[in-house]
């Protein structure tokens, strides 16, 4: 059987080679565009997931705050009033007891009332809605000084204050509450400074202590560890707020927590 003629061979080579090169080009281009498309889809999915997570966190936080607010009111208006009534009745009943006993009873009742008031305040400070964040933080620092005599809490604020919405105020308040609790429980600090700095488009909130500092946790203990839970909650709150959260822990000279909240409008 005769082979192909010269021109046929040329045509076979030309078409075959062009076909093969087109196939090679198509494979490479398909790979590039497929990866680009898939990565875009992946990114979109991640954004949707993050958005969903944020909404879930927000709903969870909202329901927790509502519950706290309800409990705070219940304690303040219910238990507090009942305690006052109990105090009056007990002192009336103990009219015939010795003055020392009455004094002791009165002191114990005062302590219980104070504790209940503090619990109500911790759950939801009434001043936050009435007077704003700066006053509430000042009040918090005064209360912390009273309850933790070994630590000196100081609050200061600087710059032209801007109006924050109640959600922002509450989240920032909770963050400071968390940071000061950490300083009391774990840092072994003798001084804690809370600072609020107002700039035209940025609020900087700082909580600095002179304690022993801490090792920033790994992703594992960030979620499951005892210390990690507090940090996790701080990070979540910062995410909800759209704020930038930074920790500087200079082992062993203390911890500085900084929250940068961009202010719009």
């Amino acid at each position, binding site marked *: 059987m005769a082979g192909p003629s010269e021109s046929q*061979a040329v045509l*076979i080579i030309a078409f075959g080679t062009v076909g*093969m*090169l087109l196939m090679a080009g198509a494979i490479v281009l398909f790979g590039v565009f497929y990866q680009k498309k898939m990565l875009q889809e992946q990114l979109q999915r991640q954004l949707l997931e993050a958005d969903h997570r944020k909404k879930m966190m927000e709903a969870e936080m909202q329901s927790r705050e509502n519950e706290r607010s309800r409990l705070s009111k219940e304690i303040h208006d219910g238990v507090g009033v009942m305690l006052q009534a109990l105090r009056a009745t007990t002192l009336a009943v103990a009219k015939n007891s010795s003055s020392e006993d009455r004094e002791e009873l009165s002191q114990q009742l005062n302590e219980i009332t104070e504790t209940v008031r503090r619990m109500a305040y911790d759950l939801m400070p009434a001043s936050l809605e009435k007077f704003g964040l700066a006053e509430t933080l000042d009040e918090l620092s005064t209360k912390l000084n009273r309850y933790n005599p070994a630590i000196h809490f100081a609050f200061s604020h600087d710059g032209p204050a801007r109006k924050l919405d109640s959600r922002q105020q509450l989240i920032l308040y909770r963050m400071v509450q968390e940071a000061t609790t950490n300083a009391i429980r774990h840092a072994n600090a003798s001084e804690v400074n809370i600072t609020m700095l107002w700039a035209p488009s940025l609020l900087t909130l700082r909580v600095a202590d002179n304690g022993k500092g801490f090792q920033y946790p790994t992703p594992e203990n960030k979620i499951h560890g005892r210390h990690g839970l507090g940090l996790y909650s701080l990070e979540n709150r910062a995410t909800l707020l759209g704020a930038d959260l930074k920790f500087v822990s200079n082992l062993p000279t203390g911890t500085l927590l900084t929250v940068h909240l961009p202010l719009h409008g």
Partner: protein
Amino acid sequence: MSRETFLLISQVPGYCLLVFMIIVSIGWKQRPTYIKMLGVYGGVSLIALTLQFAMILVFHVPRGNNFVYNCYSPFEVIFLMSIFCIVFDSRKTKRIILISNIIFFLIWLAEVGYHDFWSLNSYARSVGNILLIGVSITYFYTLMRDLPSQRLFRLPMFWMATGLLVYNAGTFILFVLLEYLVKVLNNDLIYYWTFQTFLRMIFNSFLIVCVWQDLRNRRQS
């Protein structure tokens, strides 16, 4: 096209290899194994190309360049396949590459045994083309399956696989029909071989991008 022009064009892939060797030698110790292997491949390719020219221009050995090419050809296919063997994680793929290498070597032995070292043995090379096309496509498939977050253009192996795919797809038909073309076209073959040289130049340029990209990634990380 004159013989001189043809020889001049044929040197261009060699210059590309020279540039490749210079770039691959930068930070050699820190280079990953597959890039080092690519460096060795580049070095051997450069030596083979130089020997081919030496056979024609210096030693004037008739068909001496065929002898060099017949020795270099199995090295090229087996070595490039082995580079992919390192890159792939799957044991199954590694085993397939190993078996393919053995089969290719046996085919090459059979062809060289049937003809001799001084003829242009291209059938084994065609099989090599198919294997290298297959391994490149497998690499692209792996990329699509694993979806690296990095852009594909930043992956050194992407450039190597692209170069291999283009070169082997472009020269496959040529190698399949090479024996026939030698008999029928005689002097006109240089046009077709120039096309092969052109694709080889593209492949070598892609190798340069591959090692440069690796260097860039290394410096940025």
